[in-house]
């Protein structure tokens, strides 16, 4: 089996996990989670260097990932569990009382793999710049990765950070935008248009790449290229086009599944479309 095929298989399992977790909790955010399943499968399956068996908050010698749009926690939790950060059986506790898998990611419950709380939008890029600076000071060649929603880019702090990273010559950072043009109230272009997003990042001093986020080969190739562009005094941002709800037909083509849980019948329909590859939790 090719590496790409393996990553696609894991993405399918992650998608099953997502819809089952959100259904079980009767709450959560399936749309963006499904749209980013391929990215997460590639990121942890082939892009990043990490040691899941020995979680180190300081990530010495490891790559670091920050989920700035914390509401798509299901896709991250599934990916972390599938890579051995914690038992996959724990996915069934998502959003339940006493769980380590809080609605939005947190360090407060000491869940391995999580280094920063997120949920209130717009903060992750600043955090990533700090972590990248710490790696620079420490002579650590690890790379810092982030993911942001495109709706999240409406937060002013993102642009403070966007201005800051090139100024500080951060070149060990790859930020990714989940560019699905959807947010809670509708299309991003209707709610508050981002304008020419590629040109904006370029104007702020970033190297900008574009990727098809639901095409595994495109994701893998884009991040290989992104890594090759590091170390040149500039940060890299990937504008990753995705489809909210990708993989479940009735959740695609709309913003309505941003934060709604499927009922029993909808869960069954979703699971029919998602192959169980590794095995359900």
């Amino acid at each position, binding site marked *: 089996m090719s590496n790409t095929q393996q990553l696609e298989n894991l993405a399918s399992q992650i998608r099953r996990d997502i819809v089952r977790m959100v259904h079980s909790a009767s709450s959560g955010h399936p749309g963006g989670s499904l749209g980013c399943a391929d990215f997460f499968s590639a990121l942890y399956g082939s892009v990043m260097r990490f040691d899941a068996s020995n979680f180190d908050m300081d990530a010495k010698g490891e790559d670091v990932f920050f989920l700035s749009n914390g509401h798509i926690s299901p896709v991250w939790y599934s990916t972390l569990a599938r890579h051995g950060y914690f038992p996959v059986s724990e996915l069934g506790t998502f959003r339940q009382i006493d769980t380590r898998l809080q609605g939005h990611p947190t360090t407060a419950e000491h869940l391995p793999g999580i280094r920063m709380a997120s949920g209130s939008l*717009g*903060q992750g890029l600043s955090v990533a710049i700090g972590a990248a600076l710490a790696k620079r*000071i420490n002579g650590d060649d690890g790379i810092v990765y982030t993911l942001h929603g495109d709706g999240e880019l409406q937060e002013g702090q993102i642009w403070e*950070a966007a201005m800051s990273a090139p*100024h500080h010559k951060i070149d060990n950072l790859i930020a990714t935008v989940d560019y699905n043009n959807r947010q809670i109230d509708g299309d991003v272009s209707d709610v508050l248009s981002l304008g020419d997003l590629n040109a904006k990042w370029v104007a702020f001093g970033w190297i900008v790449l574009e990727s098809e986020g639901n095409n595994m080969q495109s994701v893998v190739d884009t991040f290989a290229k992104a890594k090759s562009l590091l170390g040149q005094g500039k940060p890299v941002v990937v504008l990753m086009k995705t489809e909210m709800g990708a993989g479940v037909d009735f959740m695609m083509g709309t913003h309505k599944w941003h934060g709604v849980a499927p009922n029993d019948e909808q869960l069954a329909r979703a699971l029919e479309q998602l192959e169980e590859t590794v095995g359900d939790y």
Partner: protein
Amino acid sequence: MNLQDFNPTEEKDTRSGFGAGLAELGKRDDRVVALCADLIGSLKMNAFADTYPDRFFQAGVAEANMIGMAAGLTIGGKIPYTGTFANFSTGRVYDQIRQSVAYSKKNVKICASHAGLTLGEDGATHQILEDIGLMRMLPNMCVINPCDYYQTYNATLAINEWDGPVYLRFGRPKWPMFTTKDQPFVIGKAWKINDGQDVTIIATGHMVWYAILAAKELENQGVTCDILNMHTIKPIDRDAILDSVSKTKCVVTAEEHNIHGGLGDAVAQVLSQNFPAPQEYIAVNDSFGESGKPKDLLKKYGLDVSDIVRASKKVLERK
């Protein structure tokens, strides 16, 4: 030390104590990094910035990003000290502190100058009187408001040893120096300045000096005061409060802050649950400040020495 022996001849600003402490820390601990939002001179961070350029980051007028960067720097073992005015250190970045620092329990030291009325001429936009309350309400947050130059210097060193988020509040004006460089600073442990019998005065920040002056005057009138320098407002020194008030049976609190949410409320919380006693607040009475000279403002807003004397006599009568 006898109360009448407090006759300091030198004055320095508390922010300079912070700057000197930060420079000393730079030498002692290479984990310490500093960030500033375009106020290096005002925060007296020049010495650190010049001596340790690889560990200093100019954040520009982008405070939210600065707090996030500081939180991120802890991942990798750094101990970040952020510097800007108290208003921009708290209210402007409350959500960033709440999520990325306090809730995430990151070892960030938020260092805030120009707090309170004594900022002076810049007026109410910059004179935050709500910051102690804002920071006290955050779980995991330690809140410290030292009283003079050397206490600020020592607090700056002490918070480096404290594993977790800290809000360190200090000010702009030159203020009498009545603590010494070798005086130990223990977080959460009040400094008992004077032993008296009649009234307990608990003060923080610049108001500690006014509490000493008020107690001297009261002593001349035959009223003796316990004075507690409550430099740490959270975690508050419960034992020191109860030991003193169980003796004097009444208390005056003094702070350069709104009457809501600050030191007075922290003390009232301890007393109401353990030893209810009459209390008078010396604090700004739920208003914003305005432009003026620092001491004129303290007088206008009811934070003068004479106000502490009057409040002490009033609380005595309520026993």
